[in-house]
């Protein structure tokens, strides 16, 4: 656990010095929200109808930016080799990177969320926070695996979204449904199956990505 923490601290130190990733993620998420509001405003009667989708598209697109940098930053100066040579289990590296990705995406989400509620003029619901965390966990679990996978791939910035989006589709659907349900004040009993699906996705893909990570960083 201490070793996982060390990897997270390393990524945090890196971001504290450059802030390259966090800045671009935040600005991109904001742009996505604005672009969506502009392009839908004229045709949608109640903006509340599209609000959950806009939120998750902003989160996943911004998260994608972060994920695509995650392992490229490591490989740039040969850091990845150093990390792999460390006398630690590969699963430590996976969970360290996964948690640091989760942290950065969550920080971006925390900054975006108040702006989103203001721009769409929606009431803030505290229940939304656990849903956002669950959705982001699933997204970063698969995302970290594919981020490591695309390091040695040509046109990697393009490959990551192509690989990632079809796989995270169920998590995205469940997260959007739950967000919409909470914003509309739906009863929990109508949404439990979506919650189960989201939690199930997180558990299954954390396990699968953890097992597959060994094969990805083999060299």
């Amino acid at each position, binding site marked *: 656990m201490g070793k996982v923490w060390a990897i997270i601290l390393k990524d945090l130190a890196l971001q504290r010095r450059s802030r390259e990733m966090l800045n671009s993620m935040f600005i991109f998420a904001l742009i996505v929200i604005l672009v969506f509001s502009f392009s839908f405003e004229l045709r949608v009667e109640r903006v509340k109808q599209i609000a959950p989708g806009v939120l998750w598209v902003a989160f996943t697109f911004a998260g994608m930016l972060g994920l695509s940098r995650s392992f490229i930053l490591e490989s740039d100066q040969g850091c990845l080799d150093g990390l792999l040579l460390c006398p630690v289990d590969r699963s430590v590296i996976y969970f360290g990177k996964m948690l640091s990705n989760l942290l950065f995406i969550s920080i971006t989400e925390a900054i975006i969320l108040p702006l989103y509620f203001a721009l769409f003029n929606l009431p803030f619901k505290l229940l939304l926070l656990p849903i956002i965390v669950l959705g982001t966990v699933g997204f970063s679990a*698969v995302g970290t*695996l594919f981020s490591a*996978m695309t390091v*040695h*791939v*040509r*046109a*990697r910035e393009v*490959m990551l979204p*192509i*690989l990632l*989006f*079809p*796989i995270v*589709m*169920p998590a995205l*659907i*469940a997260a959007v449904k739950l967000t919409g349900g909470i914003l509309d004040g739906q009863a929990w009993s109508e949404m439990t*199956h*979506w919650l189960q*699906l989201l939690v*199930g*996705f997180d558990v*299954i*893909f954390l396990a*699968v*990505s953890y097992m*597959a990570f060994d*094969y*990805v960083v*083999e*060299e």
Partner: protein
Amino acid sequence: MSWRELTFRDLLSAVSGVAMTVALCLVFLVAPREAIMGDVQRVFYFHVSAAWTGYLALLVAFLASLLYLLRREGRWDGVALSSVEIGLIFVTEGIISGSIWAKATWGAWWTWDPRLTTSAVLWLIYASYLTLRQAIEGETRRARLAAVYSVVGFVAVPINFMAIRWWRTVHPVVFERAGCHLSPAMLATLIFCVATFTLLYFTLLSYRLRLQRMSEQLQQLRR
């Protein structure tokens, strides 16, 4: 060429060629005209067969990828790649024939029905698989990363199906526990078509694997 030189593959091609002809006769001549939907319903036999074969091919690709990761033998990667390519064609055929049937019966080319949407996502996953392979240099690395993606992608398929099923369903459920809505002649035609398409899949796979072996030999000769 004397008959002694005939390979198992030749036999397979001949049998699937004959079976396909018989299947066409069954679909257009033997199977009764559906009472409500009319002749359009005849697309159903090839539609179900193509979809089933597509899913079977992707299951084979998943197993071959797992075997590759465990054993590291290049031929399993060849099986996975060949099976994905063929499977993708069958899934595409399933989607297109389903789309034609949907236009005739539901009045729209596309509905966001669970099975349609799952097939579309499935198609995307395996199209991404082929794109990924093109972007990786080095044979073993390509085989390894592609195998990982194929395994992860296949795990995602049932979850996708569940997620999408909870929207709404207009797709007909042909087989229910209580029994099926098909007349005996229709059922026999369907079973024959499914078997024929499965046979066709294995024929195509054997040709595709031979192509794979030949291209590997060519690579080695060039070196």
